């Protein structure tokens, strides 16, 4: 079902500074591995349609019967993509550095520092699995369906001690050589 676009008013620092941050619909602009990405709505937990405009970009996301469509206008060019309505492939961002859509993994990386309480994090996120890499100083926390990694990162930041967490971008496919 095609839904009407809900246009939100432009506001926040991103409007004038070009720093891209926008606060409106809960996801916004984040930094992932040194790249600024616009986090796009996914099926679960997102409104059927959402949009945001600023002086540097314009984003529209809306559902059809079977897909979620994303239209990003950035620096005068328009980019389009669609994703499944739900599941791991529904998680998508627009990478403003590379001007490409990129896929997120349905998990986050949590730093093991300052006595971080992984149990509390797992509980707060209703995590399906936590994989700890002591020697590397982080843990992967697998997220349940419906919890967007951007939201999960926010929830972790709001816990006691403000643990550090980051979204994970899907990597290029591995080939045997």
């Amino acid at each position, binding site marked *: 079902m095609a839904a009407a676009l809900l246009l939100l008013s432009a506001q926040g620092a991103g409007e004038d500074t070009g720093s891209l941050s926008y606060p409106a619909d809960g996801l916004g602009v984040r930094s992932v*591995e040194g790249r600024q990405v616009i986090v796009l709505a996914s099926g679960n937990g997102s409104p059927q349609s959402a949009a945001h405009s600023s002086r540097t970009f314009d984003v529209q996301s809306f559902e059809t019967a079977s897909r979620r469509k994303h239209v990003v206008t950035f620096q005068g060019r328009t980019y389009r993509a669609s994703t499944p309505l739900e599941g791991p492939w529904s998680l998508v961002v627009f990478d403003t550095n*590379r001007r490409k859509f990129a896929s997120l993994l*349905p998990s986050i990386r949590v730093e093991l520092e300052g006595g971080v309480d992984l149990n509390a994090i797992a509980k707060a996120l209703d995590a399906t699995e936590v994989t700890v890499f002591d*020697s*590397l100083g982080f843990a992967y926390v697998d997220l349940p369906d419906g919890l967007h990694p951007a939201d999960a990162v926010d929830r972790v930041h709001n816990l006691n001690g403000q643990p550090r967490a980051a979204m994970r971008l899907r990597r*290029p*496919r*591995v080939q045997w050589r």
Partner: protein
Amino acid sequence: MEVRPVADLRECAGFILAVGALCSLVACGGDPESPTPLPPPPKVTVTLATPESTTLQESENPRLRLTVELDPSAYGAVTVGLNFGGSAERDSDYDVSSDTIEFAVGAASGSVEIDVYRDFDEEGDETIEVSLGSLTGNAESGEPSSVTLTLADGEAAVIRKGPEDDGEEQDIGPTLLPLAFALVDDPEYAVVALVLPQFPGGSTESQMLVGQWSTDSGFASDVHTIATYEITPSDDPFEQAFGNLRAFRLPVGELAPSEHYFVRAYLGSEPPATGPGVEAPNLFYDGFATDAEGRVAVRCKPGGRDTSAGGGDPLFAHQWHLDNTGQSAFADRGGAPGADLGMTDAIAAGRNGAGVKLAVVDTGLEICHPDLAANTRAGGSFNFGFARTPGAARHDPFNFSLLGDHGSSVAGIAAAAASNGTGGRGVAPEVTLVGFNPASGFSEEDEDPELALPASFLKSLGAGEGADGEPDSASVDIFNMSFGSEAPSENAAEEFVRLLKMGTTRLRGGRGALYVKAAGNGFADCEPTHPFQKELGCVNSNTDPDQNLPWLINVGGFNADDVKSSYSAAGANLWVVGPAGEDGVEAPAMITTDQAGTEAGYSQFPQNRLNSAHSLNRNGDYVSAFGGTSSAAPAVAGVIAVLLGAYPELTWREARHILAASARKIDPGIAEVRAAFNGNPYVAQHAWRTNAADYEFHNWYGFGAVDLDAALAMAAVHVAGSLGELAESDWFAPGGDAALPLSIPDADGAGASAVIEVTGLPETASIEAAVLEITVEHTNAFDLGVSLRSPGEMENVINPPLNSVLEGYRGMQNWRLLSNAFYGENPNGNWTVHVADIAPGDTGSVTGLRLKIYHAEHSQD
């Protein structure tokens, strides 16, 4: 007495040298009472020597030395001017080192260099007319006084570029991408083939996707259709990429015992020719066997081979990479004797890698293979798919596919047992071998395990500590990584960076594990758009996002002729090359272990000459057509195992230092790749160059071919700790006048340059690696070559132009490019970054540059 000026005395001296007795004591004023006027010295005659050939092939980038001769030799200063004319344009078609030649006293000849620029313009043959010009000194022009050089025009070519990746038209057919072949039990026991049809932009016609199974490997009979789908192209990139994912499920509840089953999926209405090793476009093909109970065989079962200690290695004589005698290795011809790992002494001395643990991180490992079993450690390997694969065992990474197990063949190159009466031998035949298969295991609901950097890769590469049924990779000494990926302007994941830092500092009791990685096979992996690309390669090794990290040993491949394997990717990030061979048909490939059995593995492929009909491979346990940098990496990993077996105290940096310092220079005459664009010459790939620390480097070979005997000899005298501690500098950025953005002239070899000053690092610092991070706003990064010149005047191309991974890609975004070419040099001083755009039509500028130096204080060479 006549007082002669100094110049005249010199003339006299010169004259004496030239004509001897004519210069008498009297003539030189020896008798003060009888002054005699000096006769004027005879003029020397100046001529232009005619070169052996006056026709120069522009395509060969010739540099001609043109000689001017004096007769007799100069007895005073002589200067000869040269005039250049003709139809060729100076500074555009050629350049000259000087317009004049100055002759010192006694000189009989001098020369200038004419540097003819190769270009790809269609201009016909041109001429350079050189003639003697003004002369100063006591000289006169003789004959010949001119010479005409003909520049034979080279190949004309324009750089063809595809549309931008968000362009509209691209007329290429669909492709079928195989994603997984696995046994699952959800919701029922089934073998699942997961495929992804893809339609490049512009495709509009739907295609039929057909999945079938058969007990006939050729699908000539007993063919059953599993499902048929109509696949529709989409102009949506995500829909295109993921929307057509399809799984074909073959229920395995009622399979016949001891049978072979094959599955195929193809695009189109007509089935393509199908069979082991038969290549066909848009075909997925694989197979599996059942055991005596009719279950899918997912565990390694020993085949009852007869192996016996002291039984020799029947295939050793054919393994050119261990001792190249010119043997053909079952191909049409042999190679160059001596083109091997240089391990004759090591073999004779019984250096075998005992006590060292090697992990093959790959598609699997046949732990019961007759030539691997002796070296595998019980319980040491790990099957990441065991929980999802009914009947599988946790510590048995058996690959149930019948069409070759990449990991088992990789393993044999490093670790096949010696003197057991079967097959050949590995480079380190007593190394302890473990296998991890991080991309195994599959759930249709999950992401494709090979798409991400899942936890299983980290657990396989040193972060697995063996607790709670997890793999133990933290006890591994050497990791072989015969895998990789390609992506434009992509850097390694943060997790991978941390993994390598941890592994090289904490594992091996703090001496650091060694990570040996295959550089890639993409050198010829494109339809060349321009002659230049054939020389530079299609996919550069630096476009593997993980290979820009200095903790890896990136390994390219050489063949039995002692030159680069035709497919081996070039790159500034290479460390060394190892043997990899060619196709095994026209020229030797690698002989190694294969999945055991005549109806499994690569041995049944038609291009494999060492098939089961051959008396040396009746059981089908070996293959003679294995290749790729996948085989160069384990050869080098085996060399490192032998090195560490003999000298276990070596740190990871000491081991890799020894590999570099003892490497054998191959293909010494390889020419630089250079051409003029807009009349300005541009070097897109250097010949072998010696850096300021006396290390020779080439982007095809790194420091050269690994030489085990030389490495062992060097290790014997290596002073522990002499390389100091590895340090990582801050980022250095351009300053002063080198303000960014820096406009890059279009289609012009002159390019644009920026200087980065590195200061404050120890005066005794030695570079271990340099990483440039570059950001370019550009409409097509395919056009761009990036070079780096050190304060020690070493130049290195860190991204060649026409890198096919960048075709149509807009710019470079904080892209990190690794170079090993500056190893050992002092980093302080001015570094020059040069960016050239050699193709017309797309433009842009450099907007970000940073340089990081990994360095230490080397007290021993």
